[in-house]
């Protein structure tokens, strides 16, 4: 969910969009830009769900039959996604941070 949140948060008007998705893709992204706040909200909600899933209390079974898997990698993914979405959110809300105009 954290990965999907980061992907959703990538709708932006960043200059690297052309290098990533080409001119046509950048035009499409720019047309989606007005939905950007909604994408960021959905990304934040999905991140919250991802954090809950990563940190929810582990089930405890008296007879030890519950599966105990490590969530360490999941938590790494979630934090990385959170940082990416946060960075994209800051950049989206203030595009001038992305570049210096003459």
């Amino acid at each position, binding site marked *: 969910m954290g*990965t*999907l949140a980061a*992907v959703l948060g990538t709708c932006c*008007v*960043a*200059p690297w*969009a*052309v*290098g*990533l*998705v*080409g*001119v*046509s*893709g*950048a*035009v499409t*992204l*720019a*047309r989606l*830009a007005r939905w950007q706040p909604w994408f960021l909200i959905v990304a934040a909600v999905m991140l919250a769900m991802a954090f809950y*899933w990563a940190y929810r209390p582990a089930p405890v079974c008296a007879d030890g039959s519950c599966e105990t*898997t490590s969530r360490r*990698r*999941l938590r790494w*993914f979630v934090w990385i996604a959170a940082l990416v979405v946060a960075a994209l959110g800051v950049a989206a809300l203030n595009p001038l941070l*992305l*570049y210096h*105009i*003459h």
Partner: protein
Amino acid sequence: MLRAIVSLFVVSLALGATACSAAQTDHASAGSAKVIVLDDNASQLRDDFNRAKGSVRLLLIVDPICPTCLRGLADVDASLLSKTHDTRVQTFVVHMPVIGAKATDVSPAAELLHNPNVHNYWNASGNFGRLAGNALQLRQGDKTVYAWDVWIVYGPDAVWQSGPPTPDLLMHQLPTLPAKQFLDADAFAAKAQALLNHLPARAKAN
């Protein structure tokens, strides 16, 4: 759970790879647009602009890797340039490295305009933005605004002297200029068409 995450990651990578190949296709198929390197006085643009006196002229100032600028080019193409190849409409597009574009980025962006009467220029220093901002008197308070992501229509009588002349219509996609002038491609096309309707038809070439 981990399998789902890995699957999602692989899908994201596949999407990214597809997007990157699309980007490379954009670059590979581009390169057919002629681009003139512009000096800081924009002398070539001035000469071409004045040579086209008597026509409706469009001046578009963009960064070829700015997605918003690219959207503007696509919208103006859809609303006007792809629909009319009338030689009485001449378009001058100045590309500048405002947010880091390179000369190789110009051709892919130029491909967005499907019109034979488009002239593309590359101003590597970006000084044209200052020249135009001063000449067009773009202001935010008492501060001159650097001219980029600006979309201008000129009538047939406009003459370029030391800088872009006073426009018949100026639109932009900048947060620092008045919102009422924000680019509306349909209104932009309507203004150009209105000016074109007042021009005499050119005699057909023999």
